[in-house]
């Protein structure tokens, strides 16, 4: 009688292992990749995005997973990488994900500067054989600087459209606060998003709606996007992202006697500047902030000093879906805000696209699957957002997301206006 016991256990383990690594098993899983700032001072952005991404993936799987072209359902899985807020690291992660993993699409990165550089290594025009850039679809959730997605036809974004947001905001401010006439402001000049949005979008939007620069008209600013942007920066009182002393800037703000202060920066310096203004008894009639500051960080850092500040944002828990995502984000150790909430929407968009284009999801079809997903993204005209439908601007790969205006009120961001009500 042969004793099979000694060889049975390894045999069963080997069989199980081979089943795990076999193509048949692999076909049951659809892999997506995410990356964002998980280290460095902007770590909270990556933490929040991953928390929401994790919740969204679970939601998809709880509702049956993703249907493949042959009718089978696959489980959605994700891998998440740290690209910090660093262009080289973001490029490195993109190359690694595209060449070494079976991920079908990427979500990220965090920072606009990193995104601008990263998008540059992707194939600019689909099907251009002379361009050896990465052929891997991206659906960015966080990097928000205006106009980045058109760098490559492989790159798409589901981020807010700030020119539209600030245009509507100043239209509303002009109507709601007719006595306010003058503005003054400043930005973090070393941050592409803060700087670009301030000098090319916000000040021009204010001009368009009849507001005057408190210290005299800025040459070249006509109200058109980007007009007189250099002069805007020269006329403002600015700072850097890691600055610790805002006394000179706060004095300039106060001296301007403007009705409205514009503070276009990320949470750390927004709080530094707001606290300095408060200590110097600078009392504007209204303060307007950058979209990125409509987050929990400002409420943790300077709730009192931020009181009254108004910011347009594409996320607020005003619908049951948005409330649910906000709760799930907290359960996963993060916060849902205008950046991270987009990760939820992106996962749902990816599920919809994959199911509509019918991918093979095998190693042999990986390249074709990625291309089909890219093409599927391009055909989208409308997607479901957490606070309403999102319109796609496909010649630019961008989104027109619904948004609301929030105001810092007693340590929370309270929704004070929904522009859709005006339409």
């Amino acid at each position, binding site marked *: 009688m042969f004793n099979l016991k000694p060889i049975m256990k390894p045999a069963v383990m080997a069989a199980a292992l081979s089943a795990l690594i076999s193509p048949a098993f692999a076909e049951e899983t659809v892999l997506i990749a995410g990356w964002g*700032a998980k*280290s460095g001072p*902007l770590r909270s952005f990556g933490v929040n995005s991953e928390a929401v991404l994790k919740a969204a993936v679970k939601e998809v799987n709880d509702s049956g997973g993703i249907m493949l072209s042959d009718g089978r359902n696959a489980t959605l899985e994700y891998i998440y990488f740290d690209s910090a807020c660093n262009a080289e690291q973001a490029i490195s992660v993109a190359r690694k994900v595209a060449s070494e993993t079976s991920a079908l699409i990427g979500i990220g990165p965090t920072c606009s500067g990193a995104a601008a550089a990263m998008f540059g290594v992707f194939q600019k025009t689909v099907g251009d054989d002379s361009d050896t850039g990465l052929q891997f679809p991206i659906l960015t959730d966080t990097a928000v600087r205006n106009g980045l997605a058109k760098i490559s036809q492989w790159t798409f974004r589901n981020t807010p459209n700030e020119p539209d947001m600030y245009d509507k905001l100043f239209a509303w401010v002009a109507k709601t606060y007719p006595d306010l006439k003058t503005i003054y402001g400043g930005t973090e000049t070393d941050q592409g998003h803060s700087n670009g949005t301030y000098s090319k979008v916000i000040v021009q939007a204010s001009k368009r709606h009849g507001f005057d620069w408190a210290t005299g008209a800025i040459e070249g600013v006509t109200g058109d996007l980007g007009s007189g942007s250099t002069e805007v920066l020269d006329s403002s009182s600015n700072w850097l*992202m890691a600055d610790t002393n805002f*006394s*000179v800037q706060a004095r300039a703000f106060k001296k301007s006697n403007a009705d409205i202060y514009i503070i276009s920066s990320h949470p*750390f310096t927004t709080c530094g500047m707001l*606290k300095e203004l408060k200590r*110097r008894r600078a009392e504007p009639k209204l303060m307007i902030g950058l979209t990125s500051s409509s987050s*929990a960080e400002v409420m943790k850092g300077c709730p009192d000093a931020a009181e009254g500040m108004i910011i347009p944002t594409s996320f607020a828990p005003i619908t049951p879906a948005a409330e649910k995502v906000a709760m799930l984000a907290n359960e996963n150790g993060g916060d849902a805000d205008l950046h991270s909430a987009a990760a939820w929407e992106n996962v749902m968009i990816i599920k919809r696209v994959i199911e509509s284009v019918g991918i093979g999801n095998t190693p042999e079809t990986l390249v074709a699957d990625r291309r089909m997903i890219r093409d599927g993204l391009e055909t989208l005209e409308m997607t479901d957002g957490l606070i309403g439908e999102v319109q796609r601007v496909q010649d630019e790969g961008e989104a027109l997301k619904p948004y609301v205006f929030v105001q810092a009120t007693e340590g929370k961001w309270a929704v004070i206006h929904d522009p859709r009500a005006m339409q």
Partner: protein
Amino acid sequence: MGIDFVDIAQAIIDGLLFGSTYALIGLGFTLIFGAMHKLNLAYAASAIAGAYVGLAMITLTGLPSVLAFFLGPIASGVIGFAVYVTCFRYIPTTNMLAPLMASIGALFFIDEIVIHATAGSPLSFPAVMEDIYLEFGDFGFRGDLIFVLAISLIAMAVLMYILFRTRLGLATRAVSQQPIAAELCGIAGHRTNAITFVVTGALGGLAGCMAAAAVGVISPLLTVPITVKGLIVTVIGGLGSIPGAIIAGFAVGGFENLFLLLFGVNQRDIYVFLLLFVFLVFRPGGVFDTAIERD
């Protein structure tokens, strides 16, 4: 918007007040350099980490917020000791590069621990006399910055007392100037260096708390600029020169604000670094060219 005399004077005064935190950080760098002839680049990271610990303690335990200014320095002292043990203690004194690189590693390590513990979120830091703003005509003075200046001056005075009026200070100076002779006289060099790291760590923790209180917010973003400013202060003041570090700290704070007012934020640091180069070229020994030599 035009710049008048009041703007210039106010900018310089504000800069001097804030410069007291630079002076404290510069003092820490210079004391360690004076004691060991080595730079501890993890110094500002330890200072900010200590301030975080102080904030965490008062937040978690509900202690009065002013205690952050005591708990922070204690925590920084402990971190300073850990940095000494890991980056300096067991590396031969003849190897100049290894401790420098180790301290750079410690800088990023400490910073990343803070970032992971807080997700990098800025946190509100308590300030003393925050509601006080003294106005004299067009001039205004923040009460909390006056408090920062006062505490910094007291800390400097205590440090000077320790260095020049106590046996510990005598031992520190002896090890700094003649380490072999000091050992022969029975002074334990490693123990003295360890105490120096603890004392300077506590000083740094106080500076970290003061800087966070002056901004009103604490963030890991504070680490690198404070490290850079501390190094500039140390060089301008003269490596190893205590009065030099104090004077240079105030001067850098004042000039930094003046350059900001006159040239804008994008050119401010160009002029601050130009100031550094001017000193390196024309007065490499710093404001008070130190005559301390080592065997």
